[in-house]
C-alpha cells in the first residue's frame, strides 16, 4: 500500500477518541500490574497517534468496469454490460469507505510481573471493541519491549470485532533482567472494503520488572587472600582458629591453653599448637560489560551479561552471608562501583545497582571507552587486600589479559565465565577453541577459572570446578 495520506477527510480525528479529556482519566489508572481499563465516555484506551491512509487496495477495479463496459457496448452483449455493472458495484463499495472509528480497550496481563531472569512469562492481551461500529479488518501488533524476545506464540492478531466483542491473543516472552515497559499497542483498522486504513497507537501501561535473584545457592570458593579480620577463609598461617595447623617450639608468652601437654608429658619438651587462621576476605565482583560481552549462544537464550549479572547477585549474597566484604565493579563505558562492605544496607544497595544501573542494561552500550584507563582506575580503587571475581564470557584476549593483570598486581583473580560459544559453524567452533585456550592459558598463570556451561546452574559449575582445586 502506498502511504499517501488522504486529504481533508483523513483529518477527521473527530471520529476517533483522541479527545484530550479521556486521556487524563485513563492515565490515572496506569497500574504497574498491567491493567489499563476502559474509562471515559468514549470507551477504550487513549490513542497516542493516528495515521490514516488510502491503501489503493481496489486500484484497478475500474479496469473491469471499462473492459466489460466497452466490450459490452461494442458487441452489444448484455451479460458483459451487466458484468460491468457488478464492477461499478465494487467501485462504489471501495469508494464509500471512510476511515474507521476505533475505540478499543486493551487489557494486557502477565502471568508474572516480577519473574526471575530466564523465566518464561505468558502475556495475554485482550482487545475489546468499545465503539459502535464493526471493525471488519483489525490488525493488532503488541509492543513487546525491545530487550525481551518472544519464545512462543505470536504477539500479533488479525481479527474482526463487532461492537462489544473482544479478542484475545497470547504469547510467551523470555524474561531478561531489568525493567521492561511494554510499548503502545499498534492497531491497524481497515474499512470493510479495505480501501482506507488507520494506523493507531494505543496507550497501554504494562511493566515487567525482572530483578536478579539474590538467593544463596552457591558456596563461593575464595582464594587465599584475606583481610586482617576474622572470617571463614582458611589461610596458610597458624594462629587462633579451630582446625589444627602445626606445632612449633614454645616461645615465652604463649598461652598455657595452647601448650601441647601430652607431648610435654611424653618427652618433657614444651611445644605450642597452632590452629589454622581463618580470615575475612574482601571480594570485588567485576562484571565484563563491554559490548563484546553481550553474546548469546542462540536466539532466545540469555546472553553472557545477563548470566553474569544474575551470577553476581547470587555470589554477592552468598559472600555477604559468609561474612565477607563484597563490592561490585564493572568494565563498562559507564562507571560502576560499589565499594566492598557488609550488612543489610549494603545488600539493598547492591540489589538496586544490579537491577537498575543503566550500565547493566540488557542491551549493549556501544560507546567507546578505554579499557586501559578503566583498569587503572579500578586498580586505584581496589583495597589492597581485595581479591577479584571476574565475570566474563572470555570472548576475547583483552579480558583474559585484564584478568592476568589484576592477578599480577596482587589481587588474586577467579574468573567465572559463562560459556556462550557454539559449534554450529566453523567460525563459532574456532571461537570456542580460542576460548578454551584462553581458559587453559589463564589456569597456567595461576588464575582460577570456572567454566560455567550453558545447561548448568552456577552452584553446579562452582562445585564441579572446586574439586579440581586443591587449595
Amino acid at each position, binding site marked *: 500500500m502506498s502511504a499517501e495520506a488522504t486529504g481533508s477527510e483523513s483529518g477527521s480525528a473527530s471520529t476517533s477518541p483522541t479527545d484530550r479529556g479521556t486521556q487524563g482519566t485513563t492515565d490515572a489508572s496506569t497500574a504497574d500490574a498491567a491493567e489499563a481499563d476502559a474509562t471515559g465516555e468514549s470507551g477504550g484506551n487513549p490513542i497516542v497517534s493516528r495515521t490514516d491512509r488510502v491503501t489503493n487496495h481496489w486500484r*484497478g*477495479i475500474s479496469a*473491469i*468496469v471499462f*473492459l466489460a463496459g466497452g466490450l459490452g457496448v461494442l*458487441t452489444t*452483449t*448484455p*451479460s458483459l*454490460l*451487466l*458484468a460491468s*455493472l*457488478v*464492477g*461499478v458495484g*465494487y467501485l462504489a*463499495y471501495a469508494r464509500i469507505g471512510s476511515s474507521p472509528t476505533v475505540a478499543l480497550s486493551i487489557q494486557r496481563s502477565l502471568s508474572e510481573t516480577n519473574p526471575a531472569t530466564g523465566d518464561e512469562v505468558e502475556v495475554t492481551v485482550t482487545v475489546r471493541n468499545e465503539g459502535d461500529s464493526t471493525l*471488519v*479488518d*483489525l490488525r493488532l*501488533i503488541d509492543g513487546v*519491549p*525491545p530487550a525481551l524476545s518472544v519464545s512462543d506464540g505470536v504477539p*500479533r*492478531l*488479525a*481479527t474482526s470485532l463487532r461492537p462489544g466483542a473482544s479478542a484475545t*491473543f497470547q504469547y510467551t516472552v523470555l524474561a531478561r533482567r531489568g525493567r521492561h515497559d511494554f510499548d503502545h499497542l*499498534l492497531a491497524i483498522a481497515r474499512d470493510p*472494503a*479495505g480501501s482506507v486504513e488507520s494506523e493507531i497507537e494505543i496507550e497501554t501501561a504494562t511493566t515487567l520488572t525482572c530483578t536478579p535473584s539474590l538467593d544463596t545457592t552457591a558456596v563461593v570458593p575464595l582464594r587465599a587472600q584475606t583481610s586482617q579480620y576474622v572470617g571463614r577463609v582458611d589461610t596458610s598461617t597458624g594462629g587462633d582458629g579451630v582446625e589444627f595447623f602445626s606445632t612449633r617450639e614454645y616461645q615465652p608468652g604463649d598461652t598455657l591453653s595452647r601448650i601441647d601437654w601430652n607431648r610435654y608429658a611424653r618427652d618433657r619438651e614444651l611445644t605450642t599448637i597452632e590452629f589454622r587462621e581463618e580470615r575475612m576476605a574482601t571480594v570485588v565482583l567485576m562484571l565484563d560489560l*563491554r559490548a*563484546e560481552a*553481550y*553474546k548469546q*549462544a*542462540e*536466539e532466545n537464550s540469555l546472553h553472557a551479561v545477563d548470566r553474569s549479572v544474575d551470577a553476581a547477585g547470587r555470589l554477592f549474597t552468598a559472600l555477604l552471608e559468609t561474612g565477607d566484604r563484597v563490592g561490585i565493579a564493572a568494565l563498562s563505558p559507564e562507571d560502576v562501583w560499589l565499594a566492598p562492605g557488609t550488612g543489610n544496607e549494603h545488600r539493598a544497595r547492591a540489589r538496586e545497582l544490579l537491577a537498575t544501573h543503566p550500565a547493566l542494561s540488557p*542491551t*549493549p552500550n*556501544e560507546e567507546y571507552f*578505554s*579499557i*586501559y584507563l578503566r583498569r587503572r582506575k579500578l586498580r586505584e580503587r581496589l583495597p589492597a587486600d581485595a581479591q577479584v571475581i571476574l565475570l566474563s564470557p572470555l*570472548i*576475547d*584476549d*583483552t579480558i583474559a*589479559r585484564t584478568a592476568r593483570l589484576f592477578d599480577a598486581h596482587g589481587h588474586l583473580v577467579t574468573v567465572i565465565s559463562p560459556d*556462550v560459544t*557454539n559449534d*554450529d*559453524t566453523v*567460525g*563459532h567452533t*574456532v*571461537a570456542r577453541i*580460542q*576460548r578454551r585456550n584462553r581458559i587453559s592459558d589463564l589456569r597456567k598463570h595461576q588464575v582460577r577459572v570456572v567454566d560455567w556451561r550453558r545447561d548448568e546452574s552456577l552452584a553446579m559449575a562452582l562445585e564441579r570446578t572446586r574439586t579440581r582445586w586443591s587449595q
Partner: protein
Amino acid sequence: MSATAEADDGAEDAGRPSGGLDGDDGGDDPDFHRTDKEITRQPTKPGITISVVAATTASVFALFGGASAFGVTMIGFAIFGFGLLGARRDLLDFGALGLFGGVAFGALQGAPVLSVLLGTVASVVAWDAGGTALSMGRQMGRETSTSRAETVHALVGTAVGLVAIGLGYTIYRAASGGQPMSALILMLLAVVLLVSGLRL
C-alpha cells in the same frame, strides 16, 4: 596500549563467536521488536486458500463460455498463482485480469448471463482476497492468526458482489421486454455517474 588495539587481537578473526549477537541486529533499530526477526513476511495461508477457491470458482463459471474461455482463465489463474505465492502484486493484478478476461471472453461466446456475472464476482473476490493476503502477510507475517479477519473481509466482498448481481439482474429481467441494450447502457451510464458522485 589502547583499548582498540587490545580488542582487535582476539575474537575479530574468529568471525562471529556466538550465534545471535544481541547487539548486532537489535541495537540500532528502535523498531526492532515490531519487525521481529521471526516474522515470515509472506502472504497468509487463509488468504491464499480463499483466493484460490474463488479463482477456481471463476474458472468453473468460465467453462460455460467454452473451452477457449476456460483456457484464457487458466492462463490468468497461473499468473495469479505466481503473484500470490511470490507476493507479487503486479502479477496478482494481471492474473486477476486474466481470470476476468476468460469470463468476458466466455460472455462474447454467448455464455449464460448468470454464469458471467458470478464468474465476475468470483474473480473480483479472488483478487480482493489475494491482495489482502499480500498486505496482511507484509504487515502481520504468516505466523499470525488472520483467518477471521480475512474470512469476514472476503464474505463482505462476496455479499457486495451478489447484491450488485441481484440488482443488475432484476433490472435486466424487468427491462428485457422492451429495449434491453439501450436500457442497459443508459443504466450503466447512470450508475457510473452516481458512483463518480460518491467520490466527491
